[in-house]
């Protein structure tokens, strides 16, 4: 319960922070918004039937040396084996998109419990690109906030890099452009980055890349089911 409350509180605090930041950019440029007159304030679209579409391989999922929450070294490629992977690059001091993404992943983790085949077939990985701050101790605490306590939830591991040298090739391989925000003065606690999450099949092929708008738990589960159905068929 304590963790749940903390998760809620942190989410809202971070989101409130991000709204404030957004307000700066929205400025006085008001759109000609047509507010709907009915109550259909939904943005949902019909989900495709799992297996009714293809997810062509986009690229190979790269490996590299990473640290887990206990500080143990792993080869990332080993963590990509045996499961379908959802890999997200984040950093814990992020004030806007990362907590939004973690919220979506936490919902995905909860949602997966409804389908044991999905829960058993997928592993979530959140990889920090801020190893200077995101030590194993920090990501362990971060994981405690976000990770689901639901019975049957899929594994969600939080990772960091031993140092920036080890991180660099991973960032290149996954096209993650990271840099300190220049408008923050000498403080480099915030990074310029574009959030991306990767759906990786058991053969180590990236099969989808999600911006935050498509990191919708139901949509990702649909994609995971599509890969599971593909595995049952002829496969790739």
């Amino acid at each position: 319960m304590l963790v749940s409350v903390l998760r809620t509180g942190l989410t809202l605090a971070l989101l409130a922070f991000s709204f404030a930041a957004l307000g700066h950019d929205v400025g006085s440029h008001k759109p000609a918004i047509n507010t709907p007159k009915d109550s259909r304030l939904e943005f949902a679209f019909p989900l495709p039937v799992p297996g009714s579409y293809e997810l062509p391989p986009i690229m190979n999922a790269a490996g590299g040396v990473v640290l887990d929450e206990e500080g143990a070294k792993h080869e990332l490629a080993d963590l990509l084996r045996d499961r379908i992977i959802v890999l997200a690059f984040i950093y814990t001091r992020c004030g806007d998109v990362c907590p939004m993404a973690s919220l979506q992943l936490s919902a995905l983790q909860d949602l997966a419990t409804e389908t044991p085949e999905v829960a058993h077939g997928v592993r979530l990985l959140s990889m920090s690109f801020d190893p200077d701050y995101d030590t194993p101790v920090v990501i362990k605490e971060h994981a405690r906030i976000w990770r689901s306590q639901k019975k049957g939830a899929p594994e969600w591991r939080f990772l960091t890099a031993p140092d920036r040298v080890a991180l660099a090739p991973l960032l290149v391989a996954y096209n993650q452009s990271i840099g300190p925000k220049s408008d923050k003065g000498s403080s480099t606690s915030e990074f310029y980055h574009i959030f991306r999450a990767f759906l990786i099949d058991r053969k180590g092929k990236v099969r989808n890349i999600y911006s935050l708008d498509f990191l919708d738990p139901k949509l990702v589960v649909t994609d995971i089911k599509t890969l599971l159905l593909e595995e049952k068929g002829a496969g790739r």
Partner: protein
Amino acid sequence: MSIRSYPDHSELRGWHSKLGLRSALSGFALAMFLTNATPTLSDETCQSPYMPKITGEEEFVYVWTLGVEGLGDGSDKLVTIDVRKDSATFGKVIDADSVGGRGEAHHGGFTDDRRHFWAAGLDDSKIYIFDVATNPANPRLIKTISNFVEETGGAAGPHGAYALPGRMLISTLSNKSRDGRAALVEYSNDGKYVATHWMPTDKENGGAKIEKIADGYGYDARVLPRKNVMLTSSFTGLDNYMRPLGDLIKDANAMKKFGQTMVLWDFHARKPKQVFHVPGTPLEVRWAWGPYNNYAFTSTALTSKLWLVYEDKDGQWKAKEVADIGDPSKTPLPVDLSLSADDKTLFVDTFMDGMARVFDVSDPHKPKQIYEKKIGSQVNMVSQSWDGKRLYYTSSLLANWDKGGKDNEQFLKAYTWDGQELKPRFEIDFTAEKLGRPHLMSFGSASLYTN
């Protein structure tokens, strides 16, 4: 300078209700985030919503320029113009990167991280990838895709280059048989081929509901993420667009081979859902930005009409003609559109009369022209800054369709827009500068990579 990358996550689904108070509150927060963020999704000249955008003043204008035989080096080139207002070289060409050949430079676009600009050749089917991040004032060609036709299974005439997360979506105009069957092709950001999706035809409709005909032609492709829809338009094939316009219009049979459809796709599944009948060759597609504005504009080149594709109150997507552009009987040939960030103002260019027209589209079902200005003897592309205060126009349509003689003006002209009038800022004569025929314009800024 204010530049951000906005997620346009939009699909608040029923799962929130299953996740208890925490998620319900978070769902509310997401909705608020959406409502606040969506206006800023609008990008300069309506770029892909997946990329960071320049919400302050642009610093550079990149112009993908067709080479002209005997003019300068004769090659297609990416021209960089300095538009930093305090710069000593403001309004001047500060860089030109030739690609070493002439392949009908036309359209292009940035990757989702806006670090690379993909520039496509309609004739030679090559794609040139420029690094615009290392030094935005001096783009550098880093890779050329030369086997596009082979690796895509026969698609040809790469046109738009539209950023998707980690990928590029290339809409083509043609195929190896040089007719109008077109495709949508996906590449990874590092230039590796991913997939080809052919446009639907009557025989291979992909399960789409067809209003009258599925002609298979292609042109533009743009996504409205929160509705999971993509809209494509239709032009003509290589044999037609590489033919001199004067000859082409005398060939009645060839003139039948132009697009008359728009296709609404299930974007996530990449499957066509509906094929609208939009006669007269619909070209550029511009989605509105408001979070409840589920509509897009296009213009039909041959019939000079403004069309609206919209989600009706019954949840169905429909297409209808909403306005004339100039006098359609004179075939002014509308070629490019730019919708303002607030969805209220639509800039429309017509090539034949060289006119810029401005429509009030506050009511998208009833556009009203509020202004017009002659830009030159011919005009093609228009690019609008995010704040709507600066407009840039270029002159060239296609190498063999541009006007001849003294009417063959080749320029970039920059204006300010105060809501009532276009006022000149500067202009560059691309012939005098020995550059070529300027076509697509895209904006750059060093702050994109640090902010």
